[in-house]
Every structure is written in structure tokens, then in C-alpha cells.
């Protein structure tokens, strides 16, 4: 009986994320070979990812390209194109996050071989949980949090906010109307993640966006 049990037990010992991590490493190589610096933007739905990218598109012009991850529709990609950048839409068809393989497929189709693109921004599917374990090959991971969401989100979603390089607090124009303790959020994010860089912006009024874009630009070699 015990022999039997041993026979029926098969050892696997494989990290579940290892497959995604392999694709992410391939993306990283593909992008660094072409001198492209890559951002992964993560937030809950409606926090302002596309609006931030529209402002960035006007700042960086055709030197920037965007991958839009959405469950459905090309609407966000069209907004980016109108702002002056090329955009590629990934429709996940139900999946609540982008994975590195889907991004790799997009990279092959985006025709970025002519050297004009120096910055690639990936807008992840609006969600604070699922994207956090899926690295896409990015150089900079940006967690975007907007004022109407409330100031308790950082500690509620620690698996994301402990992995971001940048915390971008958006919709600062709404601070006078809402109870949102910016200092508390920054302090809590630092406690999870001592290396995080924080920017406070309003994509609507443009407040803080120049500093943020300048910071991104300073990271592009």
C-alpha cells in the first residue's frame, strides 16, 4: 500500500510563475537590444492610466509607443493614437491582467525596428491584484492611485505596491474636495517598499506631469 502511494506521487517542484518569467526575460532582451525603455502601468479601472499616457504622448511624441491591455475594445488605443503615438491593442478576452507572452506577441507585430521608439508604455488591465505577479519585462513598474479611490489602498493591495518602482498619485485636482491624506499614502508605500519614487500629478490639469515625464526621460539611455 505504501509502495503504491509512493508510486502514485509525482514530484514537480516548479514555480508557477516560471513560465511567465521566461517570457518576460525574452521581452526584456528584445527591448534592451533595440534600446527601448519600458514602463508597466498598473491601477484600478478608471484611475487615469490612459489620460496619463495621453499627456505623455504629447510630451514624448513619436519616440513613444504604447501597448494597451483591455478586456475588450480598442477605445484606449484610439485615444493614444489621437494624442500622437503609435498604439497596439491587446484584447485579453476576459483575462484580468496582461501576461508576458501576450506582450511578446504584440512586440513582434509592432514594427519598432527603425529606431525611432525609445520608450514603450504598457497600460495593464485595470486591476490591483492580478497584474502584480505577472512581470512583463518592464524596466519601470508604475502603480497609479487616484484620489477618489481613498487613501487606504496601498496597504490593502500590498502585493502590488511592494513591487512598484514609482507610485504615481493622480487626480490631485480633486484633493480639495475629498478626504485623502497624501502623506499617509506615501509613508505606507515606503514601509512596504523603501526604494519607491513618488510623484503627485493631475493628468487633467497637467500639474506635476512635466516632473514625472522628465523623470522617465532621465531614465532612458
Amino acid at each position, binding site marked *: 500500500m505504501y509502495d*503504491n*502511494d509512493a508510486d*502514485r*506521487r*509525482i*514530484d*514537480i*517542484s*516548479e*514555480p*508557477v*510563475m516560471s*513560465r*511567465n518569467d521566461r517570457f518576460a526575460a525574452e521581452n526584456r532582451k528584445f527591448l534592451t537590444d533595440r534600446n527601448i525603455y519600458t514602463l508597466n502601468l498598473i491601477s484600478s479601472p478608471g484611475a487615469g492610466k490612459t489620460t496619463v499616457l495621453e499627456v505623455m504622448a504629447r510630451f514624448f511624441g513619436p519616440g513613444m509607443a504604447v501597448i494597451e491591455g483591455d478586456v475588450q475594445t480598442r477605445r484606449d488605443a484610439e485615444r493614444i493614437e489621437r494624442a500622437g503615438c503609435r498604439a497596439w491593442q491587446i484584447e485579453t478576452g476576459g483575462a484580468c491582467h496582461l501576461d508576458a507572452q501576450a506582450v511578446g506577441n504584440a512586440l513582434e507585430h509592432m514594427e519598432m525596428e527603425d529606431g525611432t521608439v525609445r520608450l514603450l508604455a504598457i497600460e495593464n488591465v485595470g486591476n490591483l*491584484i492580478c497584474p*502584480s*505577479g505577472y512581470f512583463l519585462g518592464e524596466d519601470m513598474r508604475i502603480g497609479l492611485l487616484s484620489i477618489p479611490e481613498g487613501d487606504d489602498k496601498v*496597504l490593502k*493591495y*500590498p*502585493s*502590488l505596491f*511592494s513591487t512598484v518602482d514609482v507610485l504615481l498619485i493622480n487626480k490631485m485636482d480633486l484633493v480639495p474636495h475629498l478626504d485623502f491624506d497624501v502623506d499617509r499614502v506615501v509613508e505606507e508605500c*515606503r*514601509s*512596504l517598499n*523603501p526604494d519607491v519614487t513618488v510623484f503627485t500629478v493631475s493628468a487633467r490639469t497637467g500639474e506635476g506631469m512635466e516632473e514625472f515625464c522628465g523623470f522617465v526621460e532621465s531614465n532612458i539611455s
Partner: protein
Amino acid sequence: MAKDMTRIIGRTLGRKVNLERVNVTVGPLSGISPESLRFCFTEIARMEGFGEPELVITTTEARMVCLECGHEYSASDFYQCCPVCGSISRRILSGRELTVDSVEIEDSAE
């Protein structure tokens, strides 16, 4: 994630077979809730032709190093402070993993 798990199992076994048990290890900082993982995995395992295995989840401890005093310590969540100096400022060394350890094939499947 559950889908990635069945893919790993399918590739290792090289075939679809009814499983009795699937053993996994989950780090406390992985962001994975055991209940929702069990729910998703049970559903997907059945759809993918692995029967109705019991998912046995072992939770490990995370390792942290305090940036104030340098003490290295274990933690079971994101919110634990350094037990020596009480500082919350620390670097995470491990605790995000999700590993498929082993599977056990159902008796009648052989």
C-alpha cells in the same frame, strides 16, 4: 494562475489523468488567497481533464531584513515590524512564491 498550474502538471505528466491530490506551497506575500486559489483550481482542473483533486496548500513564512538594525526575521504578512527594533522599514527577501510541489494520481486511474 490556476491555468498555469494545470499546464505545468500536464507537461510533467505528459497526459491527462485523474488526480487525487495536488500539493502546492504559497508564500504569504504572493497576494494569493487560498480560498480563491482552491476555487479556481478545482474548476480548471476538472475542465482540463484532471478529475477533482484536493488542493493541499502549505503556507511558508516570508523573510525580511530590517533596514534600521539589520536583523533578519520571518513574517507571515506584509505588516509585521522588526521584532528587535520595531521598525517597519525593511526589504523583502522572500515570500512571494507559488510552487507546484507534487501531484498524486488517483488509484483507479492506473
